[in-house]
Each structure stands twice: as structure tokens, then as C-alpha cells.
């Protein structure tokens, strides 16, 4: 009987989760692109690069006493987690932006959208793995950790997003080209 109760509770939780996710999906689809772009959070890539720099970690390890190093390392890892989280959320927003733009009749926009969706999905996948590794590193601060792939993917994603933005918003294209 106790097994049945466990399975009933599991089924209720699963049903609640499925209904909630289905409702969220329906709302997002019906809302279309409204409010999507505004939810992108800016990332200071320079600061992010500094945080994941292994040479910086090595320098701190040599300079600081072990207790202090562990505390500093954990603080840096928490900051890194916040950055990776923001990168992952931005990637999720760009997946939606790309998927909504996929329906466009323009083959150039559709191609750019597909590229953006692929890059954003890869970044989100890498960010998930990176977050898991950061949490492991929090428990073991001396372990080495590299989030370089996340930063690199983020830069690539920036390129894809800019291309799509340029195709969809030619007014911005002039300025983008001028900046380059």
C-alpha cells in the first residue's frame, strides 16, 4: 500500500508539472515576441573572462593562505555561476527569438534564425554542464574548472544574434557595419 501511495504522489506531482509546463508553453506561444527582447540581460564578457582565467586562480592560490584562497575561490565561483546563469537565460531568450523568426518567409532570415537557434541551444547545453561543474567546484575549490567554451559560444551567439537583428532591422545594420 505504501508503494501505491508513493506512486500516486509521484503521478500527481508529474501531472502538476506537465500541466504547468504546458500552460507556460501555451502562454509563450500566444504571446509571440511580446516582451521577449527586453528580457535579455547584458553580460560583461571582460569581467566574465577574468573570472574564468585559470592564471588568475593560480596567482591567488600562490599568494593567499589556503583558508583565504578557498573563501575567495568560492566567491569567484558563485559570481561565475551568476554569469553562466545569465548567459544560459539569454540563450533561452534567443532560442525563442530564433524559433519565432523561423516562420519568416524570407530565406535569409530563416537561415539566420536556424543558425541562431542552433548556437543558442549549444550554448544553453554548455551552460548547463558548466553550472554543474561550478557547483562541484564549490564543494572542492582546488579543482580546476574551465568555462572557456561558454564564453566562446556566447561570442559566437552574439554574432548569430547580430546577423538576425541586422536582417530583421536594417536600420541597425548601418550602425553595426559602421562599428565594425
Amino acid at each position, binding site marked *: 500500500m505504501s508503494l501505491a501511495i508513493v506512486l500516486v504522489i509521484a503521478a500527481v506531482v508529474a501531472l502538476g508539472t506537465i500541466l504547468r509546463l504546458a500552460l507556460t508553453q501555451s502562454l509563450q506561444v500566444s504571446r509571440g515576441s511580446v516582451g521577449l527582447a527586453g528580457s535579455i540581460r*547584458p553580460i560583461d*564578457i571582460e569581467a566574465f573572462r577574468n573570472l574564468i582565467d585559470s592564471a588568475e586562480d593560480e596567482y591567488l592560490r600562490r599568494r593567499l593562505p589556503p583558508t583565504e584562497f578557498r573563501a575567495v575561490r568560492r566567491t569567484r565561483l558563485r559570481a561565475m555561476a551568476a554569469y553562466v546563469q545569465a548567459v544560459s537565460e539569454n540563450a*533561452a531568450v534567443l532560442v525563442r527569438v530564433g524559433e519565432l523568426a523561423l516562420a519568416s518567409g524570407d530565406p535569409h532570415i530563416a537561415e539566420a534564425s536556424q543558425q541562431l537557434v*542552433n548556437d543558442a*541551444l549549444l550554448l544553453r*547545453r554548455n551552460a548547463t554542464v558548466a553550472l554543474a561543474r561550478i557547483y562541484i567546484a564549490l564543494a572542492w575549490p582546488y579543482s580546476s574548472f574551465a568555462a572557456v567554451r561558454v564564453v566562446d559560444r556566447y561570442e559566437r551567439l552574439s554574432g548569430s544574434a547580430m546577423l538576425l*537583428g541586422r536582417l530583421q532591422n536594417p536600420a541597425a545594420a548601418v550602425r553595426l557595419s559602421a562599428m565594425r
Partner: protein
Amino acid sequence: MLQPHSLLWHYLWLGPQVLQAVLAAFLWRRGMHKLFPFFLAYLTFGAIEQFTLYGMDVLPSVSTEAFWRAFWAGAIIEGAIKFGVIGELFFHLLRSRPAIAKLGRRLISGAGAGLVLLAVAAAAYTPIVHRPLISISRAHILLQSSYVIDCGLALFLFLFAAHFKLIWNHRAFGIALGFGIVWCEHMAAWALSASGAWLDKSYLLDFLNMATQHVCVLIWCYFLLVPEKVATTSAVSLPENNLDIWNRELERLLQQ
């Protein structure tokens, strides 16, 4: 009203099956058997299976043992088709997303293997409550195990899509939602049946199962027959202020 062989009981057993058969015919005529072959097989086989079981139930000449043997055989075939449906839904979810297709296949294989182990463990710990007619208990345990796996995989599909913010195809979403609801409910109901809970009022669980199946078929009818509303996508673009920020970051990188 809530008694076996009442008018409501007859309706809830046959009504969803009639709807399923009609829906299958519509889908076939619209050529959707090419898109969702396993789902169409599920609708067709499910309707035939339930009409057969209904006939066996109301015919006095059919023994209880024969009914449960047919029920057992039907459950095994239906279980195999349901796995095909899950694969089909996952294929539709990943079809245009090659970037995560490999990861997705690995994850669903892992989740499936874990759920099979869980279902086997649950079956091993479930007592045989119908000693005089052991085939009833076996059928209940088989369905409990089958729905543990189905419910887990349905949950996995929704979590996977939500994590990667994937937009479901309208029809695939409807099919997945219907199955998600019915599989979760069936898992709970068959777990209670298998454990022998409410043994004297087990027909209430039958009513619950049949009513949920009915709701599920109505969901499929809505998503598969009503045309999709087109979302407002014309205004989709990255805002200039964000592009400015992105550009500044990129410019700084280039200057490094």
C-alpha cells in the same frame, strides 16, 4: 450512476473509442498518418481493443479468465505502440534542432533505462492481491509498470522542451499533453488497483480511467482538428538597445 454497467459506464467505455476511431479516420484522410504513424496506430488499435474488451465484458459466454487474458495481450501490444508514440513526439521535437539531437537521444535513452528499472522494482514489491484469479493481478501490475515508464517519459519530454525553451509543434504538443494527462492519471489508478486498495469499489477507478481517457481524446480532437492560431511574429527583432549593449561588448573584445 457511478455503478458498473450503468448508462454512464457504457458511455464512458464506448464514447471515447468512437471518437478515437472517427479521429483516426479524419487523420488518415488528411494524410497525417505520414507525420504521426504510431499515434494513428495507437488510436486505431486502442479503439479495436476496447470494442473487443467491451464485447467480451457484456457477453455472458466469455469467462473472466478469457477476458483478462485478452486484456493482458492488448496491454502488451498497446504498450509497444506507446513507446513508438513517445519516439515520434521526440523526433518531432528535435527534428529541426540538430544541435541538441544527439544529447536528447542520449538523455531519453538514459531516462528510459532508469524508468524501466524503477518499474521493475515497483512490480517486484507489489503484492499479488487476486490470489484466486492471478491473471487479474498480473494485468494490474503490468499496467502499473507500463504507466510508470510512460508517465516518466512524458514528464521528461516536457522538462526537456522547457529547459531548452523549445516551441512544440501545435499538433505534437496536443498529442503530448493528452498522453501526459492520461498516463499520469492511469499510473496512479493502476498503482491503487494493483495494491488492492478500494478492492470493493475498484469500479470507481475504472470510471476515473475512462473519464480521463475521454478528456484526453477531446484534447487530441481540439489540437488535431482545429487550425492553429498564428502567433504575432512580425514584430520579432532584437531591440536596438540590447544590440547596442552586445555591440559594445563585442567591440571591447575586438579591441583586446
